[in-house]
């Protein structure tokens, strides 16, 4: 198990990982629909998306949210370090049938760790130069490895 990112000495604004870009295609949306069970047709039918007043077929908000945290999960090394994750879906990710959509993720320290060892990491998620997730915030244990008692408990519970 890699130790993972050590944020104990991190300061507000520090990058947790290098910026990451992912390309969502229509295939990505079908794959997410199938895996998640979310078959809302606005995610695969241009005619329906247009009929209900949307700019086009949109990525599932939960696809964007779920993919956006992956570079951070990889940096932390252990998903059990994540205490909470929340966001608002402020702008749709329109996925062009030919070109798809490029989504870029930047993860920086938003608040240093408190006495409980938990700090906040803010994700900036953009598509075509515009932010698509609002207040995308992850509260996480800033110490790597198995230092935290809570983390040990979390693992024990899954055995």
């Amino acid at each position, binding site marked *: 198990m890699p130790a993972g990112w050590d944020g104990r000495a991190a300061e507000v604004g520090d990058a947790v990982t290098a910026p990451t870009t992912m390309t969502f295609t229509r295939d990505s949306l079908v794959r997410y629909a199938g895996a998640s069970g979310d078959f809302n047709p606005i995610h695969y039918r241009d005619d329906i998306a247009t009929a209900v007043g949307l700019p086009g077929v949109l990525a599932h908000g939960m696809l964007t949210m779920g993919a956006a945290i992956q570079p951070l999960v990889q940096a932390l090394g252990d998903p059990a370090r994540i205490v909470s*994750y929340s966001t608002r879906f402020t702008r749709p990710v329109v996925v062009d049938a030919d070109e798809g959509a490029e989504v870029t993720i930047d993860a920086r320290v938003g608040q240093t760790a408190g006495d409980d060892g938990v700090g906040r990491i803010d994700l900036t998620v953009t598509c075509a130069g515009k932010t698509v997730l609002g207040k995308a915030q992850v509260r996480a244990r800033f110490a790597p490895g*198995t230092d935290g008692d809570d983390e040990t408990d979390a693992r024990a519970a899954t055995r």
Partner: protein
Amino acid sequence: MSDSQGLVGRRYELPEPYLVGREHVRAMARALFATNRIHLEVEAARAAGYADVVAPTTFPAVLQDACMQLFLADPDAGIELQNVVHGDEGFRYERPIVAGDELRAVLEITSIKSLGGNSMIAADTVVTDADGGHVVTATATLVVRGEVAA
């Protein structure tokens, strides 16, 4: 939605425990661009102290969505899926979900508000494991377009 306020406080529970499958975890990991081996390889997960592959961070949305479908199927709600978009989402985790977990999920409608001709429906989904322990709570707001709550 004419009687929407009567929906606040209503609960929708999955009829039986949700068994988290290993291949489903892998399918979700691939769908979410997850690269950490802990989500894909049993050996990597066990080396990290888990019983089996670890579900991606937003996997609880699957249970939340399954409960939400029960709500959307409620004739009192009268909502068409294509008119629904996701407003916000949050998770508070007790621990990650792993393959083999048998989970219960209960969604409760916590508020319905009318805003700009849309209805904003807030719901909390509490996920617990076979021992009754809290695993994660998901909080969501759905925006229903073109429908006005009473």
